[in-house]
């Protein structure tokens, strides 16, 4: 299958579109510079001043229901069909649900945990809890039972809203540790028929019960409305548990007013309106999903679409065509990898056309998107490229209608970033934290650089300490860590700035913030050369064959790397080259795979050699791990960032072998299966030496 399966009709439409595109270079794009935009955001501007009536989420929901009640608020694909709920419907459901939860005993200030993926009923749970002035606590759906138990116990959850049997089973398996748990409400009843735990009740039944009770009891109606009326900006909106890059997860407490103020700023910054569409596919418990989709959706009044299931995300994204899109760098990377793999299987003529027009895009694309002068011939060629390659490609990826795309979470490879911008996707970077309720900095349209994260977001105050740490104050910044005064005090400065723990500086040329690394991860080699592990890892990960990389070098004599290969890309390559393998482990240890990856590593070394500061941190030895790094084993965080220190301990024999010159090392590691069982994987891992480039400095006596 190639990516070229546009219909004739679409091609004709596209032809016209491309012609227009170069005649009218502004077609299909909108430029909004900060401060210049005066697009009204549904009257928030005036209403927000002085606190305003819309200082809580239930009030925003009522406003949306009154102002554009017939417009879609939420979509979800169910039984193959996109189901839509309008703002008016959502408001009715949430009111009934709140009444039902109230009857189950959920009271002001109590917590209700939400475990599962992006489902309307789970978002309604958050809304209904907020309507009762109770506190929703979303939990990562792939958390293993122990992690779940920790959060539920720490947050003292009285109720749990679980998506399906899998999540219910997890909660039940640890319920003896949760004496305060009264009810487990669930979305999907399948498989739960035979359960006779009296604490189980379907969300649908809770809503119906609430609806019936509302119809029957005037007193309850009054009570629920009263809760909404009495809601204040200082109420706790939500507690988001951090994924725990740095140890056990902490509950970040966010205030309602803070959340709404922050989102009001960014909605205005990106001119989001009720006509925008977002695709809610990232973990419900992650600050990004909650902020970008839930909060911005309520503030701007746009529609949020939930995918049918985790496996259908690509198709669903294509069907929905979001206009505002977020993906972490690895999301964009995975997309590009898939395109590259499929192009390798395409006919030669298509391959040639693809690479030719990508060359054109590289030359002119970014300039056209940013609005810089481009020669007419360049515009013509680029217009043709849009017709033949870029637009069909974006269509297949489901990015055709995207007006604003963001990436964040970690540094994005320069080439990767340039690729998407060059094909006309308005991809920008932001830098944020759960403690800031996301935005600290973000790039305005027209000021995009791959190596910066942009200037301070609206109303955010940033300073860099002498030690190089980034600190900020922002409208959305957190109230504190739940039940953890000590940690809160540790993170806040006396004058109320939040310490990010990231090292960064303001770029003199652009005025944008640049993040180097986690402050405590930046180290030095034995000879004093600065060693920024993430910088190297990101360079490595840009290659389609390399999925994950962990580099070592702090206080060592040279840099070494542990790699994970990308199964999809390497398996495809193996198939085309008739290489037989039985498992990931076998593929990872194949000598030809090592050869191929060694070429990528050499390429990284070549690019490092060009940068004076980094030349000393070329990778001298590497190995390919026998298993994929996994969050279930604690090697990655739930947001899939590598936990370098933990990996160094867990694979200590391999680290030792990397530095003692041996070419093989035995390792046995415990792994956790998806159902929570544990097992062990043993392997003999090979180590490959690399030649440093430029400096004629052979690997010292260490090897």
């Amino acid at each position: 299958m190639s990516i070229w399966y546009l219909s004739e009709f679409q091609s004709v439409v596209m032809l016209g579109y491309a012609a227009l595109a170069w005649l009218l270079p502004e077609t299909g794009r909108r430029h909004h510079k900060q401060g210049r935009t005066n697009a009204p955001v549904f009257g928030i501007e005036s209403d927000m001043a002085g606190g305003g009536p819309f200082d809580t989420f239930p009030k925003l929901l009522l406003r949306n229901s009154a102002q554009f009640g017939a417009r879609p608020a939420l979509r979800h694909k169910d039984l193959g069909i996109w189901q839509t709920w309008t703002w008016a419907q959502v408001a009715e459901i949430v009111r009934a649900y709140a009444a039902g939860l109230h009857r189950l005993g959920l009271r002001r200030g109590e917590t209700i945990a939400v475990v599962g993926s992006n489902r309307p009923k789970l978002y309604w749970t958050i809304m209904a809890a907020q309507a009762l002035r109770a506190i929703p606590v979303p939990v990562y759906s792939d958390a293993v039972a122990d992690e779940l138990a920790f959060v539920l116990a720490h947050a003292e959850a009285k109720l749990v809203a679980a998506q399906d049997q899998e999540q219910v089973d997890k909660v039940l398996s640890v319920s003896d540790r949760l004496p305060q748990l009264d009810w487990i409400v669930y979305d999907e009843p399948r498989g739960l028929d035979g359960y006779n735990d009296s604490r189980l009740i379907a969300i649908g039944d809770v809503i119906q019960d609430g609806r019936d009770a509302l119809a029957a009891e005037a007193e309850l109606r009054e009570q629920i409305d009263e809760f909404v009326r009495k809601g204040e900006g200082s109420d706790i909106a939500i507690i988001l548990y951090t994924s725990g890059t740095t140890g056990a997860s902490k509950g970040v407490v966010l205030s309602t007013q803070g959340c709404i103020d922050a989102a009001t700023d960014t909605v205005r910054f990106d001119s989001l309106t009720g006509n925008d569409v977002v695709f809610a596919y990232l973990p419900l418990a992650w600050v990004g999903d909650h902020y970008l989709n839930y909060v911005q959706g309520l503030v701007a009044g746009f529609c949020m679409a939930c995918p049918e299931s985790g496996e259908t995300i690509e198709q669903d994204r294509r069907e929905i065509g979001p206009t505002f899109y977020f993906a972490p760098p690895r999301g964009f990377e995975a997309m590009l990898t898939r395109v590259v793999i499929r192009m390798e299987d395409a006919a030669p003529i298509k391959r040639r056309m693809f690479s030719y027009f990508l060359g054109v895009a590289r030359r002119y694309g970014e300039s056209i998107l940013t609005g810089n002068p481009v020669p007419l011939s360049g515009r013509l060629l680029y217009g043709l490229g849009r017709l033949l390659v870029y637009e069909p490609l974006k269509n297949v990826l489901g990015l055709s209608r995207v007006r604003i795309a963001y990436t964040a979470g970690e540094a994005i490879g320069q080439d990767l970033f340039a690729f998407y911008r060059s094909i006309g996707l308005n991809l920008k970077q932001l830098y944020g934290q759960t403690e800031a309720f996301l935005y600290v900095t973000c790039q305005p349209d027209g000021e995009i650089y791959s190596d910066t994260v942009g200037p301070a977001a609206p109303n955010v105050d940033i300073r860099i300490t002498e030690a190089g740490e980034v600190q900020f104050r922002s409208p959305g910044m957190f109230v504190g860590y739940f039940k953890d005064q000590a940690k809160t005090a540790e993170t806040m400065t006396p004058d109320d700035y939040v310490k990010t723990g990231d090292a960064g500086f303001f770029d003199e040329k652009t005025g944008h913030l640049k993040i180097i690394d986690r402050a405590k991860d930046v180290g030095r080699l034995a000879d004093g050369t600065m060693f920024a592990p993430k910088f190297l890892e990101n360079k490595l990960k840009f290659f389609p064959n390399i999925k994950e990389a962990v580099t070592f070098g702090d206080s060592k004599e040279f840099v070494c790397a542990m790699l994970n290969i990308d199964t999809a890309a390497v398996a495809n390559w193996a198939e085309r080259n008739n290489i037989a393998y039985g498992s990931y482990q076998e593929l990872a240890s194949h000598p030809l795979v090592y050869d191929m990856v060694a070429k990528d590593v050499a390429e990284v070394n070549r690019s490092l050699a060009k940068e004076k500061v980094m030349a000393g941190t070329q990778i001298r030895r590497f190995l390919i791990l026998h298993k994929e790094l996994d969050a279930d084993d604690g090697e990655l965080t739930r947001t899939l960032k590598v936990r370098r220190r933990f990996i160094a301990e867990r694979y200590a024999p391999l680290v030792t072998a990397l530095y003692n010159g041996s070419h093989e090392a035995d390792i046995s590691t415990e792994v956790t299966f998806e159902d929570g069982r544990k097992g062990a994987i043993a392997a003999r891992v090979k180590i490959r030496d690399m030649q440093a480039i430029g400096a004629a400095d052979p690997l010292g006596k260490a090897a």
Partner: protein
Amino acid sequence: MRAPDTNEVLLQVEGVALAFGGVRALRDVSFNIRKGEIRAIIGPNGAGKTSMLNVINGFYHPDHGAITFKGRTRARMQPFEAARGGIARTFQNVALFKGMSALDNIMAGRTLKVRRGLLWQMLRYGPALAEEVEHRHRVEEIIDFLEIEAIRKVPVARLPYGLQKRVELGRALAMEPDLLLLDEPMAGMNLEEKEDMSRFIIDVNNHYGTTIALIEHDMAVVMDLSHRVAVLDHGVKIADGTPDEVKRNQAVIDAYLGVAH
């Protein structure tokens, strides 16, 4: 595991014998299948399991004996009569339409439920369209049930084996059968796929209340899944009972492990 509530017999096999030339595949086999149960038929290679299944759904005609299904006794039955009567099956080596999508394959399972004629179907208008929408809805429920949303539009030939098996189960379910025959549903699967399939079989039984007869090689799977187990060896029924009874039966142990003569 919940046992079925009734003792009502859905299918009765009485003294069935079947021979292919000199090979006596089945010799005087009798057993019954109760409504709502999961009934396993196990045995070593060549024990006559698939022959038994083929006899039940009318693909083979027994030389002796009779089969009573839903109270009607007949010695001979054609496969299409079995299908009309509410017997659906899957095959040991997956018999799907390879070039068609998973969705179309499952839709094919609705064929017998289609009321409008060929002409109406070709027009695909008015009542025929409404009917198709209704069928599609049932099929989508099955797709949701089997968690194969992501492969709805993928030609089955491109699917891995485990998923093909699931699509085949979906097609059989689309018939809304009274009796579902599964011919080695776990054959050639890895452990994870086996666990998934076991879960689906139990869910089908729980959720739709479908009576299931399954043939299986993998003893562990069968013992966990089924309410009652019949054991065949060389065409003879050597044991019949609950999984625990069968596990303790010396004849079964001998047949599976072999005996020193």
